[in-house]
């Protein structure tokens, strides 16, 4: 896990410096003229003239001490820029995950139990369409419906009056992101259920006279849920992709939208720290999922 993150930091650092051109080039391009002396001064100020290994060392040693450097654009400490934006994105992510599980699992079970019936076909097409709709388009469509039927666009505020109001505001974009993820969960639940329903112990349960409901939900679903839990780890990565575009569509001041802005401005301190942050979240979530898997399934024991 640590090794992955160290490798990740090197990868991010190299990728961002792969191509010539840094923020001083962009700023001076925008100004229209280049005074080499001014440019050199700016580069020195931002530490861009140092050897690349030294730059990397500055970043990593700072990261270990919680010092993320200064954002180029606003010239404020990167921590102060990033930290306040995390809660919104975290709430949005949890809410989206909630939506995707609440819709994905039951619909997947229904689809598997009624395999090859019209309901199954309908749900399969629905889940495939969920994977096909870009979440930013879904977001735009939702906004359009709001304009048409309520006459306004829900505007996200930093300080909503009540928790309920905040939940109501966030649930709209969360539904747009969650729809896509619920499709993924639904497909996996379906195939996992189908696999389990063919097992011997299901036949045993049926032949001893257990009711179909009991077989489906008590015997089958419990065992089918194991792979579904794993996918929540993959889901974390999947959700972040959806959040990036959805926060942009709904104008939500979260970290995901901030990443896009920072990328456009080549604000290295922000981009490399944010991408690193995303990687840490994904790796930690996957680690926790592995642990949960071990608790849920006593047959699995990790050697180390």
């Amino acid at each position, binding site marked *: 896990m640590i*090794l*992955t993150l160290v*490798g*990740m930091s090197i*990868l*991010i650092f190299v*990728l*961002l*410096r*792969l*191509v010539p*051109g840094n923020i001083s080039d962009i700023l001076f391009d925008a100004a229209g003229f280049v005074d080499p002396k001014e440019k050199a001064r700016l580069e020195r100020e931002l530490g861009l003239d140092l050897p690349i290994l030294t730059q990397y060392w500055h970043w990593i040693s700072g990261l270990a001490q919680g010092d993320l450097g200064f954002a180029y654009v606003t010239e404020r400490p990167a921590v102060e820029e990033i930290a306040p934006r995390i809660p919104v994105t975290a709430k949005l992510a949890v809410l989206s995950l909630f939506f995707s599980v609440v819709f994905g699992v039951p619909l997947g079970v229904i689809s598997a139990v009624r*395999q090859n019936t019209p309901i199954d*076909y309908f749900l*399969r*097409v629905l889940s*495939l*369409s969920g*994977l*096909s*709709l*870009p979440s*930013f*388009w879904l977001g*735009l*469509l939702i*906004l*359009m419906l709001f*304009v048409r039927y309520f006459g306004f*666009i829900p505007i996200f505020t930093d300080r909503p009056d009540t928790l309920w109001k905040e939940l109501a505001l966030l649930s709209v974009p969360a539904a747009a992101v969650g729809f896509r993820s619920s499709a993924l969960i639904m497909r996996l639940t379906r*195939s996992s259920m*189908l696999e389990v329903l063919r097992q011997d112990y299901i036949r045993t349960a049926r032949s001893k006279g257990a009711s179909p409901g009991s077989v489906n939900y008590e015997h089958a679903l419990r065992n089918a849920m194991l792979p579904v839990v794993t996918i929540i780890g993959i889901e974390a*990565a*999947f959700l*972040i*992709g959806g959040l*990036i*575009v959805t926060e*942009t*569509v709904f104008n939500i001041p979260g970290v995901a939208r901030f*990443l*896009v802005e920072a*990328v*456009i401005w*080549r604000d290295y301190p922000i*981009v490399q720290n944010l*991408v690193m942050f*995303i*990687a840490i979240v*994904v*790796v930690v979530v*996957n680690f926790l999922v592995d642990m949960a898997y071990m608790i849920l399934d006593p047959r699995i024991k990790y050697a180390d």
Partner: protein
Amino acid sequence: MSTIDHDAELLRAGAHVRGGWSATRFLIRRYPLGAAGAVIVVVFVLAALLANVVATFDPTSTNARSSLAPPGSVYWLGADFMGRDVYSRIVHGARISLAVSVGATALGCAVGVIVGLMSGYLGGWVDLVVQRIMDIMQALPLLVMALVMAASLGPSLQNTIIAISIALVPNIARVIRSSTLSLREQPFVEAARATGMSELRIAVRHVLPNTLAPLIVLATAQLGSAILTEASLSFLGLGVPEPHPSWGRMLSESAAEYIRTAPWLVIFPGIAISLSVFGTNLLGDALRDMLDPRERT
């Protein structure tokens, strides 16, 4: 080993196969969703290839007088703020989408196959190092990876293809590696080795062809995510630049401002994206059912 004799398969399923047409009819009846997907994909490809013929306007020509014209007999799907015909832009956008998705998938597959084959066949420390690198790359969401790549390479059609293809590599390398691992131990590989074939020749001539079925399935699935990633990148302003008409950028240009006044600018490009991804997904699912008997449900 993992390739399937399709005629035998069809006969076993009770089809009397004589000639291509009845086989096609059988496949349509057996995989109706896949057939629908194939039709969508064919329409999409035709639109891209014949864009100059089927488009009614030049996708880049502007006309101030028809700014924001609603859909009608002249502008079938309306016109945008600059008076450009939405229908023609969507048709030409198919070209960009096709170029990016096929280009990125092909490039990603080529690199992924080489990396996966090497990693699986050679094993040892090569495998260890390659797998660690793939682990690292996979810890980043596809879009974030593509975003960072696109930003670092700069916006152009070519760079968008490269950015997406690199993000696709780990997935493909992983699948090819795992099938290579099991193929490596097969008797026919041992037999080839016994006849004195070089390792490279065994890997390329005997192992590689047997990984094709999962590769085709995976590649079709990647097409859809490549289209979506391109649309997302362009939507965020980091994908294919002007003057190419890209579906994602058509949406971002129209997004906030015209959502009230010109809904056709939001609806139609989105339908184009969704439908093409939907088609490739349907086709990919059917191919998986056909070529990968383990996944058959």
